[in-house]
């Protein structure tokens, strides 16, 4: 099984090297891909010298779009599973194997790392806690299962779901409750896994710049949209493909075939 660890990073020069070396020290044989989301600092260069593959986005597209870029790459390069890990070092790489385990052995499409099920030694700001609680209740209600931490960016995703996300089904900013509800409607399965989240090593959190009121509005609106798309999603998640231009992207030769990209890689 080929596993790719995707680390979206925006101006994480302070943390990226230590995150990469920590991951490599625990999982020396897995591939690591850093998606540099148009950083203005040396994130990409540092990641490269630390031994990771690096995708450099020409300008800042947003967290979700960066992750999606990584998933498009993973699908086209023939990876079976990808793990999303933030570049700030808050997520303990030790939890990666538990996430992969769910996807690899229990046939779950998405393993979602929850900081509430796991151990955490940092306190979540009050405002965000309220928001998280609201969306966790909403997600739990619509997906008919307990979801404690829908905001989690610590995930393992299998190939089938990566393809779904590589199409148009991934928001450019922050994938959250709406994305989970969407994938549930489209017939994918998910399970929460306890993970360890640590205090931030250095630098500012990416969430500080997001106005939380706007965020709540955006999330409620996109959950509403997901509800209106329910039937289309249930028909195979092809609602995005009515736009031919978006579909072209994932119909590149080999993108839909598991073997071909691997063959072409070895040929190179």
């Amino acid at each position, binding site marked *: 099984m080929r596993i790719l660890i995707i680390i979206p990073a925006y101006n994480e020069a302070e943390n990226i090297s230590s995150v990469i070396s920590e991951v490599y020290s625990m999982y020396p044989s897995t591939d690591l891909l850093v*998606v540099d989301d148009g950083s203005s600092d040396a994130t990409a260069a540092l990641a490269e010298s630390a031994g990771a*593959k*690096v*995708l*450099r*986005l*020409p*300008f800042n*597209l947003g967290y979700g*779009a960066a992750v*999606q*870029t990584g998933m*498009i*790459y993973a699908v*086209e390069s023939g990876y079976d599973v990808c793990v999303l890990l933030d570049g700030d070092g808050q997520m303990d790489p030790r939890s990666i194997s538990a996430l992969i385990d769910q996807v690899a052995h229990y046939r779950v499409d998405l393993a979602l790392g929850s900081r509430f099920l796991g151990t955490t030694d940092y306190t979540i700001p009050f405002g965000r806690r309220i928001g998280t609680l609201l969306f966790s209740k909403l997600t739990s209600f619509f997906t008919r299962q307990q979801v404690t931490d829908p905001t989690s960016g610590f995930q393992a995703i299998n190939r089938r779901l990566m393809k779904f996300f590589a199409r*148009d089904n991934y928001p*450019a900013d922050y994938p959250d409750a709406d994305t989970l509800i969407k994938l549930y409607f489209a017939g994918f399965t998910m399970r929460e896994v306890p993970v360890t989240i640590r205090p931030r090593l250095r630098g500012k959190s990416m969430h500080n710049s997001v106005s939380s009121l706007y965020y709540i509005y955006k999330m409620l609106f996109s959950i509403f949209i997901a509800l209106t798309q329910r039937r289309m999603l249930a028909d195979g998640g092809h609602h995005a493909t009515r736009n031919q*231009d*978006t579909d072209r*992207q994932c119909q590149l030769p080999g993108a839909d075939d598991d073997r071909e990209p691997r063959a072409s890689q070895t040929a*190179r």
Partner: protein
Amino acid sequence: MTIVSLVHHKRLDEQYAFLWLAAGVIMLLAPLATPLLDQLSKALGFHYPPAFVLLLAFLGLCLINLQSSVVISRLNKHNKQLAQRLAIIDQRLREMERQKS
């Protein structure tokens, strides 16, 4: 005139000029239809006919604005896809060059 000139200098696509041209033509022709507009606004229950005309103008501008937003969203998406594709191709190229050297 401004619209035609913008299209002429290729700073505005014919496609997007349509609504603006339509708005211009309506504005030009509206005074000729004053009696008709008066009657129509009375029939619809407007006590003050110019209010009806302003409402129509407002709705027209809203329509043009909405079209712009739709176009921006589409361009935004295409822009994102191009950037993503560029990043992937860039990585592959680097990898190939590294393997060569």
